[in-house]
């Protein structure tokens, strides 16, 4: 499973805007390149990234071959209730990388 890094504050006040930063280790191979003996390198990309907060989807993104390796995605959401943030990266073969972190709202 590819390595990921997620930065979310552990606590937030209700109504506060929370900044979320994620990065995943992935080659994002475009499929347009060739190796040193001329064979095409097959495409290998993440195609979808989603984030749910307390069961509700707050962010979704489709990725294509133009996205660089090790995609970094940053976005914000509003702290409403204490709950889990679940991050899912789905690659072109359907394999899912899942990470979870808890946000405590006071």
């Amino acid at each position: 499973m590819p390595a990921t890094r997620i930065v979310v504050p552990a606590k937030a006040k209700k109504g506060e805007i929370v900044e979320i930063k994620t990065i995943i280790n992935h080659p994002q191979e475009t499929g347009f390149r060739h190796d040193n003996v001329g064979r095409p390198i097959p495409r290998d990309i993440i195609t979808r990234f989603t984030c749910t907060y307390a069961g509700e989807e707050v962010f979704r993104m489709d990725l294509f071959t133009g996205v660089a390796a090790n995609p970094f995605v940053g976005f914000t959401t509003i702290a409403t209730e204490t709950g889990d943030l679940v991050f899912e990266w789905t690659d072109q073969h359907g394999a899912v990388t899942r990470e979870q972190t808890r946000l405590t709202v006071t």
Partner: protein
Amino acid sequence: MLLPCHPRESGDPATRLPLPPMRIAWALLAAVLSTFALRALAQEPPRTIAPSDLRSGKEFVSPETRGQQDDLTINPGMLWVEQGDKLWRTPAGPEAKSCASCHGAPSALKGAAARYPLYDARLGRLLNLEARIQQCRAERQQATPLAYESQELLALTALVAHQSRGLPMSVAIDGPARPFFDAGRALYHQRQGQLDLACAQCHDQSWGKRLRVERISQGHATGFPIYRLEWQTLGSLHRRLRACFQGVRAEPYPSGAPELVALELYLGWRAQGLPIETPAVRR
């Protein structure tokens, strides 16, 4: 008939001194001075960039790239540092020893990276950080060796070097390290390749100028392994040097070659005092 050219050749042989006292004093002074000069020369070779003019490579990249390096939460190189942290605690070899079994936390090696490349008296050769990790793994863990440029070795190197982030480079070039330093220095000033260029011509004499779209850096190796946007991944100093050799159309040395380690020592001395930035982000 030869004229007497020296005072001691004239005069009474009985009262003659081998050298007049003043001459002895001058000779002694000259000898002492030249010894000092030679020692000073042997210890501190001339610097081509004044210490006050030293600029890290990060000052030659765009503010965006610099920001990506400085903010560790978005620095992609940290993915390798974290992987290195996992490997640090992963047992390997017949005795199932991990790096942590001997060293404890990675922070125990704080400052180590600043001293590499380092001459190892027992092995009788100059080791860079990668070679030290490889040697440690082979001898102490007796585990399968990690190939140079492999993801595992890059990750462990990044982890160890990251512990010294912010500390100044301080390699030793005296004593047995000196011949390696001299070899590295010679290679740095050696014109090579079809373009007949030496490292010094760009990085000592032309830094700050433009080379097409890029500003020429001073070529300090303080942030390795680096995340290079062109590579889309983390890479070693030797990989970067290979790109330089190819750039001047010279035959590159293989990664880990003694010539490159010697050059690495010279580069370390050139950057003396600059803080370590691992993992650096470069274009």
